[in-house]
């Protein structure tokens, strides 16, 4: 819209940029943005439909009776939502136990990461010690090591510690977090120094300054670390696949895959009901922590 107003300015120094006569030009420019707008909205609508469509299809199919779930054309709006598929999920897999395992693993990892990353991030940001930069680089470097490279020795270590096929095997290795430490360090660097000076004046030692001044201020940063940890580990598949063996230690993603194995005689809707159930916590985090999650995801990229 503003382009054709501004565009008249170009004629002053370059004559005509596209060689069109003055009469035809503004006309074309008034129409071009309109055509562009239609194209843009079409593209965005298609992209949004392709993104949401599969999830809506999953939801609608999970609400059909198992026998109807194969029907084509698929009805996107189930007129009479049917919850037998959901009941069937609870019969086939121990949903309660899977949710409990996932919640325990994810919750403890999130808490552990929040605590350890806050401590380490604070040390790197606000405390003085020898070799600080070198140690920090070393911590950051661990982000470059793919989990698959260390998984075999970690698996053996876990066995050696007598933790194989326990939930602790999933929790302990996930607690030290380079990314969380990095985020908390950035967060503490962003807080003003004046508070520490004021507290020091009042006779507070380094521990008191940390505990009473900076920890309360760091809560939003800790929330980012916690939400990111939750989202990542709730959905984690590779490590649980390797580190757990018996079904009583499975987390939700693993349980879902076994549900799929039961499918032979069953229906799609049962599997998809399980998928929808597993998505619910992620959905809640998404709705309530969207901003935090977005900031956390992009924070690491713009260091």
């Amino acid at each position, binding site marked *: 819209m*503003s382009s054709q107003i501004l565009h008249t300015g170009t004629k002053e120094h370059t004559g005509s*940029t596209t060689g069109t006569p003055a009469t035809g030009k503004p006309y074309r420019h008034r129409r071009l943005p309109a055509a562009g707008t239609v194209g843009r909205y079409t593209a*965005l609508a298609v992209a949004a439909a392709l*993104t949401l469509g599969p999830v809506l299809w999953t939801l609608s199919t999970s609400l059909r009776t198992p026998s109807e779930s*194969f029907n084509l054309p698929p009805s996107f709006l189930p007129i009479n939502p049917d919850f037998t598929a959901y009941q069937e999920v609870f019969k086939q897999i121990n949903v309660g136990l899977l949710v409990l395992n996932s919640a325990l693993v994810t919750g403890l990892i999130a808490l552990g990461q929040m605590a350890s990353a806050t401590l380490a991030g604070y040390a790197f940001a606000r*405390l003085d010690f020898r070799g600080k930069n070198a140690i920090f680089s070393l911590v950051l470097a661990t982000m470059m090591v793919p989990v698959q490279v260390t998984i075999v020795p970690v698996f053996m270590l876990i066995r050696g510690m007598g933790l194989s096929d326990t939930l602790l095997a999933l929790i302990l290795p996930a607690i030290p977090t380079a990314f969380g*430490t990095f985020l908390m360090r950035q967060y503490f660097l962003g807080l003003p120094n004046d508070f520490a000076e004021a507290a020091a004046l009042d006779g507070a030692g380094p521990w008191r300054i940390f505990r009473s001044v900076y920890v309360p201020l760091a809560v939003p940063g800790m929330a980012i670390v916690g939400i990111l940890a939750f989202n990542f580990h709730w*959905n984690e598949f590779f490590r649980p696949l390797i580190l757990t063996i018996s079904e009583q230690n499975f987390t939700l993603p693993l349980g879902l895959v076994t549900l*799929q194995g039961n499918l032979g005689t069953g229906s799609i809707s049962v599997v998809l009901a399980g998928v929808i159930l597993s998505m619910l916590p992620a959905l809640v985090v998404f709705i309530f922590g969207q901003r935090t999650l977005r900031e956390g995801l992009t924070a690491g*990229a713009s260091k």
Partner: protein
Amino acid sequence: MTTTSTAPRHTVKPPAARRSFVERWLAMIFLAPTLLGMALFTFLPIIGSLVLAFFRWDIISAPQFVGFANFASLAQDPTVRVSFLNTIVFVVVAVILQLGIALSLASMLQARMPSWLRVFLRSTFFFPLVLSAASVSIFMRYMFNEQFGVVNWLLSLVGIPAVPWLTSPAASAAVVVLVYVWQNFGFSFLLFLGALTNIPKELHEAANLDGATGWKQFSNVTLPLISPTVLVASVMAIISALQVFDQPYVLTNGGPGDSTRTAVMVIFESAFQQLEFGEASAIGLVLTVLILAVTALQFRLSRRFVFYQ
């Protein structure tokens, strides 16, 4: 304010030497959980991997030193070769698609539109990121089913005959890419959205004055300005695509044949199904070297085309 506060500060502060002594101890205590954890679960395993790669070991019998034999057999093992080739093709296609889609959608959102619509679209494109790759792959598997899948049904509406999505090598490779990109483009999208929003409006207005519009403006003004983000987004997209596992494992389990078998799947299979821990470590090391090389190369190339303000 400055004059009153600086004077007493020097007198009240504990002596610097004592303070730094306490701080040093506190720092050590604060770093202990993270550093001990990393030593145990990252650094020790890296060393373990390096050592293990030179041994033959099935956990049951004693490890046997074999020198470079594991690496030599990698080069000859057709499954390993194919899986690395698959991974590289996957990375190239998936990353180009992911960045292309993300950048076009992010720049389309820069146009004037109601803010509720912008918020809705932003949330929509970022939503798949919060789902688990395993559950996404499960429902996509049914959508791409040859007989009763909704994708083939949609194609039949426009007269395209049923495609054997998950049972033919080329189509299944395409499905793995599509599902992966579907879930991950939102991450690059968020990065681009942030970068584009940060470009000062005056720069585009100035470019407009100089007669640059449309593509010209995008390639000469927008792209150079967001080039640091393009670099970061591509490095991150490549690193994560090199490690793809969940999607091919759940969608196709590497098949048909070896057509969707990736490097990480082979690490998993040789370690935990064939109990060849030495070989698995060797593959892991090759993959790590590949990741480090790609990252180093990108940062080197970036000096030529990335512009920092």
